[in-house]
């Protein structure tokens, strides 16, 4: 078991491990090329559930033959008991909308502390289906909703009702029965704050663990519901789905711009996630012994990743080209390593010369996969106290030096070039939905969110230089009294300077900014797969594809659902 002290010693000082450089790692395009890994939050959650053998049982199962009604699962962990409450309601096809602005959904659900009695269930029934228009209390800590992938759902039900199995090739195209369109936690809509979840519910004390758990429960319910409907429709011909096919169903997800501001507004947390991933890679680079097991497993994982990528369906030309390039990269890595692997360091350096960013990051995820003993224990170090503290005593000359050292990417950017400040990020009056605007063509720039960190640093630097010319001996505190408008950015600069990786390096105001990269980075930390961009502003993806089923809990578990593949299908029962 590692410790905070061991982690700090590996990150800093004389005995630090060789981390990848900041400018390489925090480049937005590279962050937008990340893939799931064994440190992704879905993987760490499932490891916890399987190791601790959580007991998850439906205690109320009131679905009519069409699958509408109420279901409550009770979850008993070594620490506590929770309830997952789900409402299934009829939704006409023309009301089905994945956008945040929707007001009705096929399924709505809540994760609740403790057991749910009839009175509390009624309270939930009055509010959970309304989502943002409802209110809940601090017993609830996740609220979510999902819409059917109607064509897929109906097809699966038809097949099961006819005693057949779903065609795996079709699942490979759309690997889910439901898409979740929002998963709210951390105090939204009256729910328990993260401070409560992290301190009172040790089972969910890692970032987004509770939100991921709700998605896992939704995935399992979706399979149960499809079987339930098929069985009632044709009890005589019905056959349950084979477990290996069930496991290949994940849960769909549509992620839009809302996720992008999160990455900018939680820089210390994002830095922590990046630090742990990079520390894991550095451990593998230095300590990863290349023995017989590894030399056998490595090409197998290359092959698996290639097939997984081939099975990823997207209509997006950009992503299609990326996937094609990843396939070429994987092939090149296979050829390069066919006669043996000198060291991971050599291979990683070679990949930086010969592979695309997505190919390089795929290699990183594969290397992490090979060494659970070096990687998994870092899963307990993904939280951060998010204090952006001012260092009031820092001399201004030092502050200037910090900016020059840590924000060279921002200083080297020419904000006077055409298009450099053409994008603005704002909240719409429609459900406060985050949106992008063109500053030259649309109103609202005066209400933009403060996401242009690079530009703010540039302005701060210029004013700082002017101030230093007049008051070279002043401290940061004195500068802040004189220039309170710069308080936010100075505090951020100093705080991020205390981190290894710091801020994401991109001008979010640029006309050509691709928010997709931000979404992809966060989703990769979550652990999703099958990225399917629908525009530069939102992406479909699949969660928990290949993960164990509820009925697998308590059985042997090899934690090997990385880059899942379609199961071989040898005819129906």
């Amino acid at each position, binding site marked *: 078991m590692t410790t905070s002290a061991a982690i700090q010693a590996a990150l800093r000082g004389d005995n630090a491990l060789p981390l990848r450089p900041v400018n390489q790692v925090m480049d937005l395009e590279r962050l937008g090329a990340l893939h799931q890994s064994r440190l992704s939050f879905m993987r760490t959650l499932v490891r916890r559930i399987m190791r601790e053998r959580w007991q998850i049982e439906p205690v109320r199962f009131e679905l009519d033959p069409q699958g509408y009604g109420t279901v409550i699962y009770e979850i008993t962990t070594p620490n506590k008991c929770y309830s997952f409450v789900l409402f299934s309601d009829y939704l006409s096809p023309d009301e089905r909308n994945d*956008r*945040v602005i929707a007001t009705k959904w096929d399924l709505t659900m809540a994760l609740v502390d403790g057991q749910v009695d009839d009175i509390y269930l009624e309270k939930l029934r009055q509010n959970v289906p309304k989502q943002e228009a409802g*209110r809940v*209390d*601090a017993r609830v800590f996740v609220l979510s909703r999902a819409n059917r992938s109607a064509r897929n759902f109906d097809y699966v039900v038809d097949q099961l009702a006819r005693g057949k199995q779903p065609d795996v090739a079709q699942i490979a195209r759309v690997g889910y029965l439901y898409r979740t369109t929002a998963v709210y936690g*951390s*105090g*939204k*809509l*009256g*729910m*328990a*704050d*993260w*401070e*409560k979840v992290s*301190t*009172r519910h040790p089972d969910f004390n890692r970032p987004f663990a509770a939100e991921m758990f709700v998605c896992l429960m939704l995935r399992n319910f979706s399979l149960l519901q499809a079987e339930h409907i098929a069985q009632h429709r044709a009890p005589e011909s019905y056959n349950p789905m084979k477990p290996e096919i069930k496991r290949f169903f994940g849960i769909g997800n549509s992620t*839009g*711009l809302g996720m992008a501001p999160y990455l900018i507004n939680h820089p210390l947390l994002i830095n922590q996630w990046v630090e742990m991933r990079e520390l894991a890679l550095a451990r593998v680079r230095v300590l990863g012994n290349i023995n017989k097991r590894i030399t056998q497993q490595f090409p197998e994982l290359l092959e698996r990743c290639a097939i997984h990528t081939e099975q990823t369906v997207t209509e997006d030309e950009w992503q299609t080209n990326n996937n094609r390039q990843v396939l070429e990269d994987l092939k090149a890595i296979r050829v390069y390593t066919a006669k043996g692997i000198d060291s991971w360091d050599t291979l990683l350096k070679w990949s930086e010369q010969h592979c695309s960013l997505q190919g390089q990051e795929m290699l990183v995820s594969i290397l992490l996969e090979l060494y659970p003993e070096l990687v998994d224990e870092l899963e307990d170090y993904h939280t951060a106290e998010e*204090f952006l*503290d*001012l260092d*009031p*005593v820092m001399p201004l000359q030092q502050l200037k030096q910090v900016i020059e050292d840590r924000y060279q990417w921002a200083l080297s950017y020419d904000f006077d070039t055409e298009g450099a400040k053409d994008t603005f990020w*704002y*909240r*719409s*009056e*429609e459900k*406060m*939905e*985050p*949106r*992008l*605007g063109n500053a030259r063509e*649309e*109103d*609202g720039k005066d*209400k933009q969110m*403060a996401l242009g960190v690079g530009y*703010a640093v540039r302005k701060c630097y210029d004013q700082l230089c002017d101030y230093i010319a007049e008051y070279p001996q002043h*401290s*940061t*505190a*004195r500068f*802040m*009294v*004189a220039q*309170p*408008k*710069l*308080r*936010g*950015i*100075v*505090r951020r600069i100093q705080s991020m300077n205390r981190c290894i990786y710091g801020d994401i390096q991109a001008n979010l105001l640029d006309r050509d900014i691709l928010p997709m990269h931000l979404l992809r980075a966060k989703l990769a930390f979550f652990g999703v797969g099958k990225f399917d961009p629908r525009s*530069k*502003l*939102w992406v479909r993806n699949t969660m928990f594809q290949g993960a164990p089923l509820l009925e697998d809990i308590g059985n042997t578990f090899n934690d090997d659902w990385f880059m899942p593949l379609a199961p071989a299908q040898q005819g129906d029962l």
Partner: protein
Amino acid sequence: MHVSMIELKAALRRCFEATGYYVGNYEDAANMILWLEKHGLKGLDELQRALPYIGEDSSKPLSTVIYEDSTSAIIDSNGRSALNCIAASVDLAHAKALENGIATVTVHNCHNRMFILKALTDCGRRGISVTAYWQNGNQTVTEHTAAIKAGERYPSYSEAVTNLSVNDQDKQALTIICSSRVDLTSSLQQSKGNRNACYISAEQIRLNKEYSVDFGIDIDENLWAEINRIGAGVLVENNERSRQGAGGR
């Protein structure tokens, strides 16, 4: 009505952002109010009193340092609310204390000084001990003090009603003493004429926080509506074009 702490913080941030507070200041203001309320010190009551005036600060001069030496400073806040200026004053005291062991900063013409408790707590967390003292009131004068030890997470707080007469010199003034060497504590003396005195220990403040973490925060519906009404000023009008900016089909 019941809200979570993060909901209150987000609404307050929008409210102050819409009022014209700067980046960094609107987070501070939201955090100061939330901190008081979360720790049982009636931050929302204080906000209710401040709310009618918060828009006026944008036309007032910024705080100015009117005297300064290595261990002390006097700052004129020019009638501003502590919500947008007191953190910088505490930071100045903090910096001087780090350099010289102990420092005093006096702030004049500053309203809503109760909000200093969050800034003071941040100092404690970061290893600096602080105490603050101020008087308040136009007819009846109340006095207040708060203190936190180095490395602690919670301050103590005392207040009392006095029989002092209003002193124009002291009006809207606040004294901050900061030390990197000495652990400062404070409580009001049993002065003749003081009444309704109360002392809230750091432990009681911690317990108040635990309750808020467990159950969230109750807020008057009208105040909540007013915070959100002001905060709506940061929202951009919806139209078909803007819907495209969300990736809508």
